[in-house]
């Protein structure tokens, strides 16, 4: 399923809404999650999962081609943990 298919499903279920509003609604949801994580916040969606930010410490890396040492700065990466309900649904046939 891709973004446009998701938008189409929501549009089909809500014939009273303009397609462009459905697009804005779906985009707002994803945008809000990214903005929260960019501020360092968590987004917890019970049953679905939780988005959070993990810190990766600075380390000495190596250029795999030359073997040269390089300093890698501390950075923050997005992380998702699947919620219990969805995890269970994946496994119930």
């Amino acid at each position, binding site marked *: 399923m891709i973004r446009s298919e998701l938008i189409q499903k929501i549009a089909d279920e809500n014939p009273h809404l303009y397609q462009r509003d459905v697009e804005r609604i779906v985009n707002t949801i994803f945008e809000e999650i990214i903005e929260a994580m960019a501020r360092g916040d968590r987004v917890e969606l019970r049953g679905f999962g939780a988005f959070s930010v993990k810190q990766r410490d600075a380390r000495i890396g190596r250029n795999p081609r030359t073997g040269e040492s390089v300093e890698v700065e501390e950075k923050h990466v*997005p992380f998702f943990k699947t919620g219990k309900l*969805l995890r269970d649904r994946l496994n119930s046939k």
Partner: protein
Amino acid sequence: MTGKTLTRMDLSEAVFREVGLSRNESAQLVESVLGHMSDALARGETVKISSFGTFSVRDKAARVGRNPKTGEEVPILPRRVMTFRPSHLMKERVAAGNRR
């Protein structure tokens, strides 16, 4: 880093502010979006949201695990797990936003 936790309520509030719908309907729409994504994943489909990320379902083989407390061996059955791979855009925005 403000260290807050957002929930469905914050997402529906954002939808409410963005489009002229009632709070109630905004909440229902957030729920349907999550519902459709969950349904697709439960069917084993990959959910790919451009410039956000990709949720995919993977099969894990059976293996013998161990209870870390007792050291006892326990069989772990084959199961399906979901993974999320953030888009480059998401990674960049999260890294940039949390840089000091």
